[in-house]
Structure formats: structure tokens, C-alpha cells
């Protein structure tokens, strides 16, 4: 049931779900900042459960389950030792989450700002943090030569502490892991630790998920290489990957589409100019119909057929024969051929000149001109674009033996002028539209340029353009023509200009108050269209998205949902495979890997490409069939070609094409057993359980282990007797407490995959050493081999869902996520899990979240 709302600021009328009655929202009109209250003409929405004002006021019934989940999750993550903030923290601060966090159903009052709830009483610094700092930190991190240059003496209260947010995020992490205080110092009891962890989690990460969502702010994004290529393809219809020569885009937060990281050094600007020239040349054939160019071939350069001989500044054809010239027609159309020729007469006929184009006779002239006074013989012909041969043949040779008179043909020049007209069906569709109007008696230059550019610029800049922007371009064309350029050439240059304009190269989103972080507002529909299209297609919006934006309908929930379905079904969604999946799964790392050629002569660049292809196919299949992303973990099917099938020992596959095969009865299932993943997580000459475990923690669970401390202590194994297996060496390594916390998880995960060798082949033993593929995670999950490991991971579905939400949201927004995005990530993960973690569910939840649909002004940092 819906109620009608009228915005008092702009007068817009729209409908809102009545269940939000009484709540405030923001007017959906792009340029309106008005707020409204949903009238309560309908039954009131179920009220949110009342929140306790302080943790102590919690009812036992509510707090106990929450506490239980803290203990359980925290145990795994504290033990896991990852920088498991996003996960551990969620559970740990559960008491501060209010009920609205789990809307999950995806129906949000958007664009809306939910009513802020009264915040609960936070635990104070004085009682929860200071005593711990005093007792356990300042001894090393004091004022005098503080360890690592960090002095806790400076942190007297929450305000001073929060100025070093990153530092304390790290501190929390280390204390949770048990890395700090270090093993050789007195260890805090759990009773001492808990208040501090509670306090830090709250102070650093508490976000009221029922309050207004901070959508964050995305930095202006330059198109990256993939986006540039695709955008050019869709804008101009030129598909030659002009960005192939661009310098690599730097990566931040795991992806190469992050606005803050994409810079524009002079080298790249130079490449943009080169590319724009190339694209403009390929897209437009500039012809000057008012002054058709003339391609002339003089006697010296004429191609000589049989019986053609040099004569004075001409070529004489003394018997049946010809002379010719090559001509490159830039475009299909009419051309004027002009042959300058004269004859030597004999007998009753004049010398005949047969004009041929590509060996086809076009016309025959009787050459009246005499040997010493050549004349032009002209004929209009239609030619296709491309290379042509124009020839003048002498066809009626005659010799009067009595009079000793010889009939000959002399040719001194062949010219082709044109095009005089252009065959419209021969130029690209782009050119027909871009040069649809030309200045003429009926149409001024101004009108012609405007009409041509208006629709084009809207697509190139991905927004409507103002008349003053068009003025400037009309002026540009006029100036170029005054400099002697033809209309076509001036337009071609304009195209170049558009392709290096900041409005094209950057995805621009604007704010009314760019420097007011409290001014949160929805994107306009054109900005939203670009976010959608670059997210799902790595390219510009298509006609339908533009049309929806034009009608200001795109931001509506049902329209967004329909568009997501349509866009995912479009072949352009392959961009998600090529750009998102490749980076999420770190497949690009394979490009730089070279397994030891002596140990693995089977490995080849082709096999490497096949490995990548297999993994991409699986992801593409999940996307296209809208399957559950859990298939990543345990799909009993995969995609192989002959080479890869042979590598895996799967019989009966021939040919280079990939096809789906069942993995039933084989030891393989899911990504973890793909040769791509197994190879990229190996050293060139042996497997690395550490790297494999790290990959799972980063890619599947989103809990990247912190980097090893510098000066890694020598492996105890080096001192111990040789002959230990690598596993035994690693186990010794873990006797060192500072290594143990992370390696206990990483190594164990990796052990489960030891059945796969450094290039991903199945093995039962490593040389003569039998394999031990058992592992046990802190918390008691035990497994043997990859299948059971996959089973354990599949139980961590919530973590996996949050991991996917986190990565895909980062990619969708083009910015790193902040602590305040946590509510959003949780909501997306929940919504997706509610629909079996189908790919479309994940994407839809992202597209509908505030971070995707809104932005705000910037918090201005004090200058460094």
C-alpha cells in the first residue's frame, strides 16, 4: 500500500510505501534537497523494537543470544588472527545494532533517510581503555623512545585517539590476535581484554545502521583501459582496442577502477591524443566535397603495360597495350577520372583510348588530340572504398606499311579527383549520424554543427549538454574552417577534442555543495546510468538507460531491478568476468608466473591461458545462469578444452573449444581445485600451503592475514635436523608465537590442498613422501583433502557472502570501503543470502543501496 507525498520544496509528487509512515525521507528529484515526512493515512508501520539506552539495560533474553554469537564468532576470528574486523566486529558490537539493520528484503525507502535512533550509551574511555593502556602498553610505547615510534601517552581521551583511527584499528587487530602485548610481556587476562575490545570496537566502528546511511564520496574516476576500450567501441563503433598501448592502471583495494588511484601522467595524456587521432581516423572518412582532392600520376610514375615505352614527358603505347595508375578511394562514391592523352594518326580511325577501372572497360574515347597537344579525357565513375587500378588502353593499333604511318596512343597523366559525392551506405553508421548535417544554402554552419553534436555529446559526456557547451564547439569548427580545413576535417578534429575532454575521460558526478559532508543527496539519473553501466558493462550507458534517465525513471526500484536483469543478460556483462572476476580471484597474477621449466616442461603459455579460461568460464556460467555463487566453492562441473582435460586426466575431450564437463567421480570440485588457483598459489618449484591458505583468507573469507613482521625469524627447521617435510618445518615455525596466530589458519587451510601439485595436477604423494592432507582450524573444524575443506568453507556462507558483497561493492563504487559502509555490506550480504546467493541478488542489492545511489560532499582534510 502506498501513500502520496508532495515535496514542499519542489512540489514533486511521488508515492511511498505506507509502512514508512511517520518517517522522514529526502525528495527523489535530482536537484531538490527537500525532506518530507511520510503521512500516516495508512496503518502505521510495525515499530522497531525499543532499544536499551545502555548495555546494562538489556533484557537478559535479548542479550544472551547476542553474547553467545560474540563468543562463537570471536573465538574463530581471534584464533584465526586475521584482520577479521569486518566480521569479528559485527558480532562483537551486535548489542549496538538496532533492528533495522536486517531489513534484508530489499525494500528501502529510498532515497530516504531513516529516522535516527537515540544512540546508546557508549562505554567510556576512562574505564575501558585507559587502565589497559597504562598497564599493558605504555611500558614500551611510552614517551621515551617509544617502540615503533608510537606513544600511547598522547592518547588521553577518545578525541585524541580517534585522530589516529587507522593506528587504533591496527591496535585492535593486534590485541585481538594476541600479538600485542608481545609474548615476552605480561599477558592481559580475558577480563582485562574484554572491556578494551568492546570499547575499541564501539569507538572505532560503531555505526548506527538505523540512522542515516553515509553513502560516502567517490573520487572523480578516469576511465581505465578496459572502460576506455569498451566506451570507444560503444560510442564510435570502433573496436580496435585503442587502449592496448596505454600504461597499466594502478591497482588499489584489489581493483584497477579506483578513482583515487587512477592518475593521469603526461605519458597517458599523450596516449589519449594518439588514440583520439586513431579513433577519429577510423570512425570518420573526412572528404572535402567542395574541393575534391586530386590524385595525379605523371608519366614517370605510370604503370607500363605491354608495348608501353617512354616518350618525351609521356608514355607511348605502340601496339595493343596500356598504362595505368593505382588509386586509393577513401570512401565509396563518384570520382572523376581524367586521362591526358594525344595520338599519332594513321589509317581511317582515330586512336582509341579505352578507359578501364579494375580491368573493366568504362568508356572508349576517340583521341582527337595530337601528339604535341594532349587533351584531357574525363569520365565520372563510381568506385568502392579501397584500392583501384585505373588504366588507359590502346585498342586499335594500326600500321600503314605503304605510307609508313603508325597509329599510336600517348598518355602523359592520369588523375582521379574526388570523391565528388559520397555513397551514404558506404560510410559507418557513426559517420552518417555525426555528419548528418552539413552547412548549405538551407542550413547555417551553426545549425549543422549543433544538430550533429547534440546527440553525440550527450552520449560522449553521458549527460545532457548545455547550449553554451555547443557554442564553444561551433566556434571551434568555424575557427578550423577559417584555417583552411574542410567541414569534415574540422568535425573530425572536434571528435578528437571530445575524446580527450575531461568530460569524456572522467566520470564526473557533481554536488551542490562539494565541500559539505552533511549534504547527502541522490545521484541524478544520468549519473546513476553511468554507475550502472560501468559497474555491469565497464562501458557507457546504452540508449535504453539514457532514455530512462531522460524520463527520470531510472532511480525507481522496480526499474532498477528490471535494468539489472536486462544488463546481466546482455553479452556486455562479460566485462564483469574480465574485470571483476579476474581481479577478485587474482587471476592476473598468473600472467607473471613461470613454474620451473625443468620440473614442469608441460607448462606453457597456452596452458596458462586455458587455466585462466576455465575459472572465468565457471564464473561466467554462474553469472549467465544466475546460479548461486556457492558453486564457486564446490561445483561438481567445470569447463575444459583438450589441453586442460589432458592436464587433469579427463578423457575424451578433443579440440580447443571449452565445454562443460562433469567432475563427478574426480577429486576436483569448485575453484579451489582449479589449476589456475593452484598454480598461482605455488612457488615455481613447489606448492605453498601458506600461499594457498592466504588466498582463501583473502579471496573467499575476506580476512587477509596481516603481513609477516619484518625480520622474519629463521625457520627453526633450518637449525633442526634436515629431512623434515615442509609441513613439519611449517609446524616448527608455528612454535614462534608471533607467527603462530596467522599460520595456524593459513597453513592448515593450505594443507587441505596438498593433493594438487604446483601446476594443479592431482597427486597422491610428493615424490616419495606420502601426503598428509588433513587440517584443523582453530575452533575445531577438521577436514581431510579439498572436498572436505570446501565443505568447511561452505559452512562459512555468511563470511563468504560478506566477502563477495565487500569486493563487488568496492568494484561497483570505485572506492575503498570505509567503516561506515559496514551496515551496507551486511545488508547486501543478507539480501543475497536470502536468495541463495544468486549473482543477480547480489548485484541488485548493491545497485539499490545508498552508497551506490547517493553521494555527499567531501570532508575537507586539513592540508598536510
Amino acid at each position, binding site marked *: 500500500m502506498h501513500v502520496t507525498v508532495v515535496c514542499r520544496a519542489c512540489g514533486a509528487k511521488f508515492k511511498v510505501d505506507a509502512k514508512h509512515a511517520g518517517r522522514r525521507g529526502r525528495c527523489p528529484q535530482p536537484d531538490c534537497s527537500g525532506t518530507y515526512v511520510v503521512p500516516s493515512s495508512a496503518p502505521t508501520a510495525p515499530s522497531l523494537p525499543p532499544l536499551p539506552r545502555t548495555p546494562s539495560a538489556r533484557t537478559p533474553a535479548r542479550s544472551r543470544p547476542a553474547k553467545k554469537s560474540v563468543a562463537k564468532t570471536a573465538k574463530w576470528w581471534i584464533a584465526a588472527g586475521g584482520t577479521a574486523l569486518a566480521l569479528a566486529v559485527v558480532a562483537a558490537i551486535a548489542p549496538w545494532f538496532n533492528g533495522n539493520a536486517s531489513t534484508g528484503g530489499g525494500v528501502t525507502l529510498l532515497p530516504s533517510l531513516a529516522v535516527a535512533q537515540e544512540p546508546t550509551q557508549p562505554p567510556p574511555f576512562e574505564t575501558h581503555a585507559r587502565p589497559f593502556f597504562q598497564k599493558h602498553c605504555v611500558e614500551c610505547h611510552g614517551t621515551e623512545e617509544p617502540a615503533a615510534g*608510537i606513544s600511547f601517552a598522547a592518547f588521553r581521551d577518545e578525541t585524541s585517539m580517534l585522530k589516529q583511527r587507522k593506528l587504533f584499528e591496527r591496535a585492535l587487530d593486534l590485541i585481538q590476535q594476541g600479538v600485542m602485548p608481545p609474548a615476552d610481556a605480561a599477558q592481559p587476562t580475558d577480563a582485562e581484554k574484554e572491556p578494551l575490545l568492546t570499547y575499541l570496537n564501539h569507538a572505532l566502528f560503531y555505526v548506527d545502521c538505523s540512522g542515516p546511511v553515509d553513502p560516502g564520496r567517490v573520487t572523480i574516476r578516469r576511465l581505465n583501459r578496459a572502460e576506455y576500450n569498451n566506451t570507444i567501441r560503444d560510442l564510435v563503433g570502433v573496436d580496435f582496442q585503442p587502449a592496448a598501448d596505454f600504461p597499466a592502471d594502478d591497482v588499489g*583495494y584489489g581493483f584497477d577502477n579506483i578513482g583515487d588511484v587512477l592518475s593521469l601522467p603526461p605519458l597517458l595524456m599523450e596516449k589519449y591524443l594518439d588514440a583520439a587521432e586513431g579513433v577519429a581516423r577510423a570512425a570518420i572518412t573526412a572528404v572535402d566535397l567542395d574541393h575534391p582532392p586530386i590524385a595525379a600520376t605523371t608519366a614517370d610514375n605510370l604503370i607500363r603495360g605491354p608495348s608501353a615505352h617512354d616518350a618525351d614527358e609521356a608514355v607511348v603505347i605502340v601496339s595493343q597495350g596500356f598504362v595505368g595508375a593505382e588509386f586509393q578511394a577513401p570512401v565509396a562514391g563518384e570520382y572523376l577520372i581524367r586521362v591526358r592523352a594525344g595520338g599519332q594518326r594513321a589509317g581511317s580511325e582515330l586512336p582509341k583510348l579505352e578507359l578501364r577501372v579494375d580491368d573493366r572497360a568504362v568508356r572508349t574515347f576517340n583521341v582527337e588530340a595530337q601528339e604535341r597537344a594532349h587533351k584531357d579525357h574525363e569520365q565520372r565513375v563510381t568506385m568502392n572504398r579501397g584500392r583501384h587500378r585505373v588504366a588507359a588502353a590502346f585498342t586499335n593499333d594500326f600500321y600503314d606499311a605503304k605510307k609508313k604511318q603508325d597509329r599510336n596512343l600517348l598518355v602523359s597523366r592520369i588523375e582521379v579527383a574526388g570523391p565528388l559525392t559520397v555513397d551514404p551506405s558506404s560510410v559507418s553508421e557513426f559517420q552518417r549520424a555525426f555528419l548528418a548535417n552539413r552547412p548549405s544554402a538551407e542550413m547555417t554552419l551553426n545549425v549543422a554543427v549543433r544538430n550533429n553534436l547534440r546527440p553525440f555529446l550527450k552520449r560522449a559526456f553521458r549527460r545532457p549538454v548545455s547550449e553554451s557547451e555547443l557554442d564553444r564547439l561551433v566556434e571551434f569548427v568555424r575557427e578550423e574552417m577559417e584555417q583552411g580545413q574542410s567541414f569534415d576535417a574540422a568535425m573530425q578534429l572536434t571528435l578528437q577534442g571530445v575524446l580527450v575532454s575531461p568530460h569524456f575521460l572522467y566520470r564526473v558526478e557533481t554536488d551542490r555543495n*562539494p565541500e559539505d559532508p552533511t549534504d547527502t543527496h541522490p545521484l541524478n539519473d544520468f549519473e546513476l546510468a553511468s554507475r550502472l553501466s560501468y559497474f555491469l558493462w565497464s562501458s557507457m550507458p546504452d540508449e535504453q538507460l539514457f532514455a530512462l534517465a531522460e524520463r527520470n525513471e531510472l532511480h525507481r526500484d522496480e526499474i532498477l531491478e528490471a535494468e539489472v536483469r536486462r544488463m546481466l543478460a546482455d553479452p556486455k556483462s562479460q566485462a564483469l568476468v574480465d574485470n571483476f572476476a579476474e581481479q577478485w580471484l587474482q587471476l592476473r597474477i598468473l600472467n607473471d608466473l613461470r613454474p620451473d621449466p625443468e620440473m614442469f616442461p608441460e607448462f606453457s603459455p597456452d596452458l596458462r591461458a586455458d587455466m585462466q579460461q576455465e575459472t572465468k568460464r565457471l564464473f561466467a556460467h554462474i553469472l549467465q545462469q544466475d546460479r548461486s555463487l556457492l558453486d564457486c566453492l564446490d561445483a561438481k562441473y567445470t569447463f575444459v578444452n583438450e589441453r586442460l582435460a589432458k592436464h587433469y586426466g579427463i578423457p575424451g575431450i578433443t579440440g580447443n573449444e571449452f565445454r562443460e564437463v562433469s567432475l563427478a567421480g574426480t577429486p576436483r570440485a569448485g575453484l579451489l581445485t582449479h589449476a589456475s588457483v593452484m598454480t598461482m598459489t605455488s*612457488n615455481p618449484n613447489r606448492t605453498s600451503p601458506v600461499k594457498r591458505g592466504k588466498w582463501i583468507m583473502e579471496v573467499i573469507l575476506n580476512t587477509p592475514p596481516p603481513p609477516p613482521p619484518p625480520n622474519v625469524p629463521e625457520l627453526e627447521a633450518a637449525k633442526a635436523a634436515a629431512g623434515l617435510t615442509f609441513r613439519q618445518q611449517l609446524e616448527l615455525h608455528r612454535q614462534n608465537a608471533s607467527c603462530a596466530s596467522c599460520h595456524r589458519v593459513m597453513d592448515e587451510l593450505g594443507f587441505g590442498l596438498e593433493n594438487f601439485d604446483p601446476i594443479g595436477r592431482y597427486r597422491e604423494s610428493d615424490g616419495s613422501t606420502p601426503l598428509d592432507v588433513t587440517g584443523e582450524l582453530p575452533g575445531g573444524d577438521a577436514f581431510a583433502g579439498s572436498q572436505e575443506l570446501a565443505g568447511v568453507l561452505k559452512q562459512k556462507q555468511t563470511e563468504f557472502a560478506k566477502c563477495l558483497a565487500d569486493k563487488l561493492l568496492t568494484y561497483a563504487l570505485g572506492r*575503498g570501503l570505509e567503516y561506515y559502509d559496514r551496515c551496507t555490506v551486511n545488508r547486501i550480504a543478507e539480501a543475497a543470502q536470502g536468495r541463495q546467493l544468486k549473482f543477480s541478488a547480489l548485484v541488485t542489492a548493491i545497485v539499490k543501496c545508498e552508497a551506490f545511489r547517493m553521494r555527499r560532499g567531501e570532508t575537507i582534510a586539513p592540508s598536510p
Partner: protein
Amino acid sequence: MSLHLPRRTFLKGVGAAMALPMLEAMTPTQTWAATTTAPNRMLFVFFPNGAIMSDWTPKSEGTDFALPPTMEPLAKVKSKLCVLSGLAQENADAKGDGGGDHARSASAFLTGAHPVKTGGADIRVGQSVDQVAAEKIGKQTRLPSLEIGTEGGRNAGECDSGYSCAYSNNISWRTASTPMSKEINPRLVFRRLFGDSENLEERRRRERARRSVLDLVAEDATRLQKKLGQTDRRKLDEYFSSVRELEQRIERSQAETARIPKPDYPEPTGVPQDVDEHVKQMFDLLVLALQTDSTRIATYMLANEGSNRSYPMVGVNDGHHHLSHHQNKPDWIAQLKKIDLYFMTRFAGFLEKLDSIREGEGTLLDHSMIVYGSAIADGNAHSHRDLPIILAGGGNGSITGNRHIVYPRETPMNNLFLSLLDRMNAGVEKLGDSSGRLDKLS
């Protein structure tokens, strides 16, 4: 005796019709200003992951030092280089930022600044020494500076412990926040240096067109910038300064009447599959760039910092970064020495080539200053003190070679940079953590 005669006076006295060789007396005795006819050059060649210092540091100080094992390939050019010990890039230290020594060392290498730890937002380190020079004197040549390497960006995951890949993949920073991307394709470097095979008229036409286009878009950017917030404006500044640089380059090019010199070197076809071939071609292109005076400032990253490339051509099939955490295992150290020696061999070849090319009274090497090194000493310890640094070339007579100079421990490497900038006539008073100029070079 030192008698300075203005050339014009001298010619008047003798009669201007005679073409005369320059006389000694007309060459001022004080060096390094623009007194010799040859220009001075400043290059930086970077290798990642540190070096095995026991085979790097000469045993004795001064002129009589014997080349340590890693430097043996340098025998032929030993007289024209100095080994500098004791220099440090302390800003590559963690300073509370935790892991990420590789990212920090590459970004501090030529900046002497401490990078902001970030995966993306607010990338900031400092302007690098080459770009200081490029800004001041880059307009003397067609390209203000040249940035090349052999490894593109690592395209997945984090590069190093929470640092954006921009830090590990670049050593040249145009501003504190804009790295200068490097070119890794030899063919594209060649084209950048020597242009397409177009004639002068075509080039003029193209440059004129480019100029109009750049004028047009600079206006767009100016208007756009007014609507943006602080960070976005900063991003757009990169756009402006790149446009400006291209405009200046076109201006300089149009002042030239001659064609761009075409070297007697085949245009490379692309990125070679073979790493060794790639490394060599890039060195060759550096030689060509100097020989044709296309630029006087260049940086070359032999590989990105933290690179895990293997070097099978010298029998190293394991990854470089992996090996660099050698834990003092003898076999790992032996492998690393092979990599050190490999890089040095190619570097030595480059120096020899420069030394074989005559220019005025000396050779290209005599008129260059080439810093070769890394901002990590031993990869196992990730130390940024006592760095492996070689300074090759005579700097137009301003540097005396054949010496092992030992500076007090923790002497900022940026002191060396100040001294080099002076010799490029691009002096500044401070750069990064510099505390003064480096003595003992002349």
C-alpha cells in the same frame, strides 16, 4: 695561466672569416656550469628486492678498491664510477606503519619521503629528484624526462601489505601524488623518442591540430574544475599539468627546424617474450635517447619493487622476491647473487656502450651521472640503511671516478640528489629528508 677571452673579441682581432677551433683559454676552468659543449645527464637505474651486500660492498675504501664479486662485470668502466656506501633512505622505514617495506622503498628511493599508507585514497609521497630536474631544465630537450621499465603493473590484489600498487610500480613522481607511469614496450619507447615515420610537414600539421584540441579541452577542464570538490580538483590538476606539458613539447618541437634524428637502430617490434632481451633493449633505448639528446633525465626500473620474477637465463627458476627473504640459507643466497650479477652485467654493458660513444672531448658516459641501486640493502632484513648504490659517469668532469666512498652511516641518499641537481643546473635547497649536499664527489 688562465686567460679568458670573450670569443667575439677574439674573432674581431683575428678576422672573422677564419673558422677556428676553440682554444683552451676560452673554456673557463671552473667546471660544471654550461661550459663544455656537451650537456650533462642524470639517470637512475633501479633494481628491486635489495642485494647480497657481502658480495656488493668493496673491502677497502678509496681508489685502490678491488671490485667485489657482484661488480666484476664493471671492470672495463671501473675508472669512471664510484661505489657509494653508507647512504640511507630512512623514510622507507615503517615508522609505525607496519609491513610494506617494498612499497615504501620504491616510493622513497628517489623522493626521500615517507609514503602515506593507503590502498588508494590519498596517495602521497613526494616529488622525485628526476622530476625536480625535469621541471627545471626539462624544456631543453624534446622530452623533459623518460620513464621506462620492464614490468607493467601487477594487476591483482594488493601489491604490498595495504599499499596501493602505485607505490611499488613507480619510482618517478611528478608531484607528491602523481606517479609518472613508465613505458615498458620498447616499440612505444622508440616511437616516443623518434616519432612515427612521418615527414616534417605531416608532423607540423598534426602538431597544429593537437594544439587546437588541447586549447579546447583545457577550457573544458577549467570550467569543470569550478564545480568540483577538493580531491576531484586535485585529480583534475593532473589533467591540467599533463596538457600543459604536451603544449610545451609541441612548442619546442615547432621551434625545431630539423627532422627528429633517426637513429641507426631497428624499430623494436613490441615487448620481447624473453626477459633478457627486454632488459637489453631498454638499455639500448636509453643509449639512443642520450645519444640523440632527446632527453637528459631518465629512470629505468629493471623490475617493479617486490617483483617475483624468475631469471631462468642465469639458472634462477625461483621467484626473486621469494628468494630475497633468504633466511640466510646458503642456496637461496647463491641464487640471489646470480640475479645481482645478472643485473650488473647488463648495467655494465650499458655503461660500456655509453663509454664507446664519442661526444666532444669525451664520451657519453663522461657527460652523464647514472645512479644504480635499490632502496633495500639486504632483502632478508629489509634494511634501508647502507644501501647498494653506484654512481657512474663523469658528470661533465664534476665527478672523479674509480673510488669507493664510505659516508657516515645514515647519510640521507637525498644529499646525493642535491649534489646531482646542482650539476644539472637544477639546484634546490632541500628535497625530501636531505640534510645538505654530499661531499667528496668531485
